[in-house]
């Protein structure tokens, strides 16, 4: 936006209170709208329909908390998002052609030769995988992703993810299983923006699993990192140990209590609803909680019947839409009959996020099938693991973004700002030249590697100028 211009989103304010409900004041648009936002139409009279000109902004000195799910904008030189300019990437001889894997953190000497993908220990899952019919995996192509958030919305409605309200969002308790991370890098006044869909990575060596004291999160043989709601006691250790921070905790009974009444204890004797104590209501019908009757019917209809609704005190996270996977597997088993061909054909299962994506940036399927779409995407050079150095072996991998800026435009950059920032933090591209987990021919010593990198860097730099 240009300087001295101020943009206001119209139509979000709800300050008109019309109704007094048992559990407090609600807005004119119902329970969700109560006290949300401000009326910006006051600025826009019939004389200035599109622009209010001559408006003066003054500092009131007052503070107002905005409910935002992301407060930190810099990427801090971390290789979470990997981007390259097209001209550099297209030069097959340059180190930039392999930028995505080149931004991996170098292994300590000797680790690369370990047989198990650079891990010191064998993963028991590898043995299980040999007998599994499928190995589920996902690839997210950041090149095609627009950042439109359709996936986030689809996930929320498919998986009965509760809406927690403004107050809980300000406390950082939104429940979205899938979120859109965004970063600004480069010049503060003219930054480059990059975004990344972040969701459970279904790590093969999942850090969340070994810290749960009650076995509430475990792996199955098809590579799903499962969350067993019934078993969860809510120590929240799994979330602390998750490097991607994609686990969400039910701090309240979001599904059974009105959002404006979360802090009211059901045991509170003054907590009456229709002349009945909430605790009595709860004893009579333990699933209903304190939600108004009409709202309860609506909520029940809004839920996806194939997905469990979680109670307070349990952790939840992306399941790769396990209800769809299981549905497809059962259908395939029925179809296969005595033939025994129980492998679900590629493309049968679409996760909710994948289905909603207008750019088809998300692919999901069997990574043991080399012909599946997801396997083909993962085989591309742009494929990389986020936080590779933790060796969590995520089943969800990302395809690095290739930008194609016009050199004649003022916002042209030699390399994407995220890459530049990463380099400025003292990192340099490692010359891998081989796929993930491939341990052939890396005999050259490090000094030689560095020289190699420098040569390529100079070549690519020259190439960039023409």
């Amino acid at each position, binding site marked *: 936006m240009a300087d001295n211009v101020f943009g206001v989103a119209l139509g979000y304010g709800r300050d008109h209170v019309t109704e007094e409900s048992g559990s407090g004041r609600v807005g004119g648009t119902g329970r969700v709208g109560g006290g949300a936002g401000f009326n910006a139409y006051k600025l826009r009279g019939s004389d200035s329909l599109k622009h209010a000109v001559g408006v003066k902004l003054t500092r009131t000195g007052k503070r107002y908390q905005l409910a935002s799910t992301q407060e930190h904008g810099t990427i801090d030189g971390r290789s979470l998002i990997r981007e390259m300019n097209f001209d550099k990437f297209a030069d097959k001889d340059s180190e930039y052609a392999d930028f995505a894997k080149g931004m991996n953190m170098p292994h300590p000497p000797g680790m690369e030769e370990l047989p198990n993908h650079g891990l010191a220990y064998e993963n028991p899952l590898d043995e299980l995988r040999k007998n599994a019919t499928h190995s589920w995996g996902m690839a997210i192509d950041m090149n095609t992703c627009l950042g439109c958030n359709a996936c986030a919305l689809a996930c929320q409605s498919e998986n009965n993810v509760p809406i927690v309200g403004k107050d809980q969002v300000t406390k950082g308790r939104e429940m979205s299983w899938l979120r859109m991370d965004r970063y600004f890098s480069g010049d503060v006044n003219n930054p480059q923006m990059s975004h990344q869909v972040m969701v459970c990575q279904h790590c093969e060596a999942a850090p969340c699993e070994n810290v*749960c004291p009650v076995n509430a999160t475990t792996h199955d043989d098809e590579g799903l990192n499962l969350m067993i709601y019934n078993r969860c*006691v809510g120590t929240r*250790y799994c*979330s602390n140990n998750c490097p991607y*921070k994609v686990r969400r*905790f039910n701090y309240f009974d979001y599904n059974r209590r009105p959002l404006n009444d979360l802090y009211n204890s059901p045991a509170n004797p003054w907590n009456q609803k229709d002349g009945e104590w909430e605790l009595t209501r709860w004893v009579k019908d333990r699933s209903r909680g304190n939600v108004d009757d009409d709202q309860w019917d609506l909520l029940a209809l809004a839920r996806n019947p194939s997905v469990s609704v979680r109670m307070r005190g349990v952790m939840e996270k992306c399941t790769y839409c396990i209800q769809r996977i299981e549905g497809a597997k059962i259908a395939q088993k029925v179809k296969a009959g005595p033939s025994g061909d129980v492998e679900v054909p590629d493309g049968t299962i679409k996760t909710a996020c994948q289905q909603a994506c207008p750019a088809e940036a998300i692919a999901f399927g069997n990574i043991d099938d080399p012909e599946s779409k997801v396997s083909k995407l993962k085989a591309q050079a742009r494929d990389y693991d986020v936080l590779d150095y933790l060796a969590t072996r995520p089943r969800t991998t990302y395809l690095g973004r290739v930008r194609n800026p016009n050199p004649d435009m003022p916002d042209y950059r030699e390399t994407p700002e995220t890459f530049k920032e990463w380099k400025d933090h003292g990192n340099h591209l490692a010359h891998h030249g081989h796929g993930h987990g491939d341990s052939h021919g890396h005999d050259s010593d490090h000094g030689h590697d560095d020289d190699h990198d420098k040569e390529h860097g100079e070549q690519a730099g020259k190439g960039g100028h023409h």
Partner: protein
Amino acid sequence: MSDHAPAIKLEAPPVELERERLVSNNRDLGEISDQICDVMERPNPLWWKICMIPALLLLSMLGAMVAYLVTVGVGVWGNQHPVMWGWAIINFVWWIGIGHAGTLISAILFLLRQKWRTSINRASEAMTIFAVMCAGVYPLIHVGRIWYGWWLFPIPNSNDIWPQFRSPLMWDVFAVSTYFTVSVLFWYMGLIPDLAVMRDRCKKFIGKFAYGLFSLGWSGSNRHWRNYEKAYLILAGLSTPLVLSVHSIVSLDFAVSQLPGWHTTIFPPYFVAGAVFSGFGMVLTLLIPLRTVCKLQDIITVRHIELCCKVTLTTGCIVGYAYFMEVFIAWYSGSSYEKYAFWNRAFGPYWWGYWAMIGCNVVVPQFFWFKSVRTNLWVVFFLSILVNVGMWFERFVIVVTTLAREFIPANWGYFNPSPVDIMTYLGTFGLFFTMFLLFLRFLPMIAISEVKAVVPQADPHHPLGGAEEGGHH
């Protein structure tokens, strides 16, 4: 006596070679019993009532806060998305750290033949047990579904699912419950001869009955003493590794995870040193006022206070070294995530927590190098409180600062405690002080029989020994 052998008169050692006595003013054995028992036998003093009222109020507040938490959910605390552990875990680690001094004093100092421990071991052990009780409240209530907390124990159940033995939280369950059990047993063992003293002195029936029941028929016979000494030695041997293991295991809650700032091998020794540091801080905070209000200055002398200060100084230096080493290793590791984690501690949004920790835990104990400070009880009392403030901030820095900013910057957050967090924490003080004040009134706060063993009168070869100057009664 007979005329064939003249009695050998031992000369008292020269004054400059004589160590400062552990019980000052040459109190004889009977007076020691009287002094210690007087705390329980005299009518309820005013200071006790004044302390008990707020303690009970705070305890009720703890009950109310726990009831509110259980009926509503963990959301009543300040915990949020990246910072899933907040004050509950900070306070758990803080209280359990305080609960380290008692067993260290009673077990390790016993094995090392440090006789000065006798004046302070009983009260410190009581402090340990009550601190572990306060700590134990938190792991129980901090989980999301408290009614299923028993799943952390290996109890056979119809689901046929065992706890997950790879989880450090699981190890915590065993470490803390073992420590608590052994501490209580050790404390009770040491109490038996003193309970018998109370039984013999008590005039009311109910007291006679209760002390009589728990003194297990102690008659002070040679055989009883022999068994007692053996059992005490064995329990001291069993408790010694536990002093080191509990906080090592608690530290593994952090060290086993993979977060930058948590995943460090220095944690076990560093946590144990910190625990002893905070434990002695709390011992000083409690004993300095107590020796005055209970008129026990002869038994808990300034020398005892000084020795506690020296332990605090030593452990404070170890903790300071650990802080320095953490920062060094973060730099030396070459990992940008590690480097950022420690930079963030010192200069990030929680910088005040880090510098409060450094100030209280590294700078404050350095004052104990000076004898003039160690013998000025007002100053020691004030500094001992700072030690515990600093140790609270240490846990705050470890838990909150680490979780608030780790791998994925888009997901960083800022933790604020809720009033329920604060009131629950204050409530545990209510639990602690209620228990401690009851202990003062109903159990001898100093091990009577052990103190008697370290006065010169107990040594028949000492010039003051024997029956002559009021030794044996």
